[in-house]
């Protein structure tokens, strides 16, 4: 399709569009721009109220980054988050991929209903479950251990992943597995050797989605993990980078930006697939 199809718009509507776009883009992205500016400003510049905050009144500095990487546990938190993310991804795939396949192909008319049931569990929020879960975690002796969140995080990644994958599996023609079975595979082999390889892009979507959700989670990590060294970035940065009442704004903002941007880029690449999962068939 050529770029500019569609009815001619009046100059007014076109100008209006730009006003809306620029206005919202600035309002929505501004905090991140500000994180960038703050990360490189000297503390004395930040804390001088006579200065124009939009300008570098003193030369930029790398001191905040040095502090962040050298004297805080930021790198440790990043490593923790990555490790948790990878393990949660593995758990999620192990549970969700077979389950989604079973729901799309094998359970007849119960499939869709169970699918919706699974989807509804996604609507049950952590803030309803975290109190009993904190006790279960303690009972299992996992308090203050990364294993607590590794075990609990799939509770919100699995339902949505099943839902996303069901959409993928539905779009694969049944004939494919039937052909494989005629050629001598069992149904399970057909799933492993035909369906899974074809669904790589769907599975990749689930991987990215799961990973971003892990980095975004706050409540469970805050509740189950009590020592600084075991934190994820999502909790470590906003809670433990603050000493009492002292906010190291420069390092804090740098940490926020360094963590947010890669996640945002990843998410952006797979955006359309996530949206397809959220729209519950309300969009054809």
């Amino acid at each position, binding site marked *: 399709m050529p770029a500019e199809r569609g009815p001619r718009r009046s100059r007014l509507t076109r100008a209006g569009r730009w006003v809306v776009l620029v206005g919202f883009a600035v309002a929505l992205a501004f*905090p991140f721009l500000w994180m960038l500016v703050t990360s490189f400003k000297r503390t004395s510049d930040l804390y001088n109220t006579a200065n124009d905050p939009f300008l570098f009144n003193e030369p930029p500095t790398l001191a905040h980054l040095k502090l962040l990487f050298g004297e805080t546990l930021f790198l440790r938190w990043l490593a923790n988050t990555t490790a948790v993310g990878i393990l949660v991804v593995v758990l999620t795939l192990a549970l969700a991929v077979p389950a989604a396949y079973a729901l799309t192909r094998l359970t007849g008319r119960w499939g869709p209903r169970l699918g919706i049931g699974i989807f509804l569990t996604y609507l049950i929020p952590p803030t309803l479950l975290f109190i009993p879960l904190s006790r279960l975690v303690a009972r299992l002796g996992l308090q203050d251990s990364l294993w607590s969140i590794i075990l609990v995080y799939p509770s919100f990644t699995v339902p949505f992943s099943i839902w996303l994958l069901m959409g993928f599996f539905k779009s694969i023609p049944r004939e494919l597995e039937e052909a494989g079975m005629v050629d001598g595979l069992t149904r399970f082999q057909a799933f492993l050797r035909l369906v899974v390889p074809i669904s790589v892009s769907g599975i990749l979507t689930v991987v990215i989605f799961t990973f971003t959700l892990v980095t975004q989670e706050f409540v469970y990590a805050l509740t189950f993990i009590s020592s600084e060294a075991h934190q994820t970035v999502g909790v470590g940065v906003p809670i433990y980078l603050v000493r009492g009442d002292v906010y190291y704004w420069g390092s804090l903002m740098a940490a926020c930006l360094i963590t947010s941007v890669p996640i*945002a880029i990843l998410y952006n690449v797979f955006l359309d697939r996530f949206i397809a999962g959220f729209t519950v068939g309300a969009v054809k």
Partner: protein
Amino acid sequence: MALRSSTRLGVAMFAPALIYIAAVVGLPLCLAFLYSVGDVRVGSVGYHFVGLDNFRSVLRSPTFRRSLANSFVFTIVTQLIVIVCANLLALALRDRFRGRGFVRFLVLLPWVAPISLGAIGWKWLLDSIYSVVNWVLVHLHLVRPFDAPMWLGEPRLAMASVILVHAWRMLPFSTVILLAGLTSIPKDIPEAAAVDGAGFWRSYFRIVLPMMTPIINVAVLFGVIFTFTDMTVVYILTRGGPYDSTQVLPSLAFFTGILGSDLSEGAAISVFLVPILAVIAILMLRVAQKAEVV
């Protein structure tokens, strides 16, 4: 026979996920109800049924009532702002233009970045002394230099700030969902309206918007859930203060149940989320059903 073995395989493939969800979602959900009618504290061992005592004591607390009201106010106001803005923004993003991908990326940042980090960013923007927002307001002569608003320090402003940050966070999400709805309308239809004599606004309000109703419902339902059950924004921005003026049900449940060690009362507070969630779930099912009929 073939059918039966395939059913068995289906059960075997589905069972692990089902068992996991039962253990990590189903069980705690039941426990939440159980705790809310018992006396469970951190470190306590036994369980005594205390009926509706927890609910009674919770309902008597002015903080709880404040939180309940806040939860509703924050959610409703946020969603009103979000849905109007999201319609506008989705419309502006519909046609292709150079740089659309980049604009979309900028617009999406608040949703895709971890919310705890976004919220701490806002805490800096709204700082009592070094707020850049205030600096701009002062230099636009909208407020006087030594009388700048204490965004997170005054009850009304703090509520406004929490709403602002929630709206900031949810707007990208609603926008991309509405955008999906907008682009799913066949191009012919607005074109037919244009040929039929409709101007931009008539075509939008009479044709496009009604066709988008199901998708708008989806965006609102998710938006309500995400806002109503969130405690991160409040926890980081204000810790519920000043004087509990921004306390909401999830954050109050956290302060009472985890920090205050009274698991039962915390559970009772969070159980108040359930009716809303149930209503949302039913509405969601209805939307899904309608979508399938069409």
